[in-house]
């Protein structure tokens, strides 16, 4: 149910200030364009951003940089254990 793959925004339609024109993002999902509702996004989405999509709605907007920061966190976590292990005299 929880698709984890962020989808890239190609185009944003509608007007955030006009309830008669709800905002929709056209996203690229593995080469297929699909429409995603933006009613729930915590941060406005622009072309080039990525969306986490659940049941046709974007629930989170993220950028490439957000993903890179997350990767850095993992690397630091692994490094943190290595340092502790060295202090404890571990071999691995």
């Amino acid at each position: 149910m929880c698709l984890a793959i962020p989808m890239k925004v190609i185009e944003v339609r509608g007007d955030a200030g006009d309830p008669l024109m709800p905002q929709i993002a056209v996203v690229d999902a593995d080469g297929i364009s699909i429409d995603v509702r933006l009613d729930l996004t915590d941060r406005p989405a622009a072309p080039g951003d990525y969306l986490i999509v659940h049941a046709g709605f974007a629930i989170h907007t993220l950028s490439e940089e957000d993903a890179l920061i997350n990767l850095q966190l993992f690397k630091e976590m692994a490094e943190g254990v290595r340092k502790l292990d060295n202090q404890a005299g571990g071999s691995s």
Partner: protein
Amino acid sequence: MKCADEFRSRDLAEVLLQALSAVPNSDRKIRIMEVCGTHTNAIFRHGLRSLLPKNIELISGPGCPVCVTPAGHVDAFIAAARLDGVIIATFGDLIRVPGSSGSLAQAREQGARVEIVYSPMDGLQLAQAETDQIVVFPAVGFETTAPTIAATILETERLGLNNFCVISAGKVMPPPLELLMADPDLNIDGLLCPGHVSAIIGADAYKPLAEKYNISCAVAGFEPADIVSGLLSLTRQICDDTARVDNCYTRVVTESGNQRAQQLVNEVFTIEDTEWRGLGIIPGSGLGLRDGYKKYDAFARLDLHVEPAPEPKGCKCGDILKGRLLPPACPLYGKRCTPLQPIGPCMVSSEGTCAAYYRYWE
């Protein structure tokens, strides 16, 4: 996303797995509950169980929305489907879930209109296209799904449409987790917290659990590196004897969650008591429609009721959802109950623990 593959890469997962094996004082037995059905599935699919240190035991939790929907609710969905002039628009994994007699799929075979939709908004579009029918959406799901239902109801209101309604069966995660963590027999050391529920409610939502029950918590995404980093955070906390909430899914989850989605849910829904399959009635764990939105309540509109219904005979889904039993311990598992002929909901849904075991267990 250029770096998307990195979260899936073997190299990064391996570095994290090595770190996991090297956590000081980690030779004790560690019991971790992965709450979310998508985690259960991803852990199997990526073969992570066989790569983890042997002392880490993973227990699956109640995080499959279809699985925790009691048979009495499923009966009400079927009763609605059998009414003239009603179309059921539902997420696909619900249609084969057995109630006390039959499923939505069987009702469809017998002539009821049951349409599978990807989004509740597709149900609303169906209502726009077929104005002489009432479209009923069984609103099963957790915090991730609730805002999508809320937004759909608000859109129905905006359009002035009166032939779309929902069977409100949404649930929230913290109360059942509290119930499970208070159970001394379960003896859970750490919680791998669901990624997309947390995108909505925020990582801070688990702080009371960590503090009150001394349970280590880590929010994680669904790629291999995400899951292993979550397990690494939990193992470190558990071996340090600390209990806090670590957010390992920073690209999607913030401390306070998605405020806009929370606002929409609060606008449309109010917290009420509700029944969970296997766990019974849990106070404050359900989402009911607020007074201003009662006209979208299919129960009132179609005069439906939830009657108490017995669980399928011999089915151990209840104990499996509580983490008390593993699927192979159920007498029906793999014999009378298989994904092709499911008896219990945990075997039906692709998120279900039994379905995951059946597909991947050696």
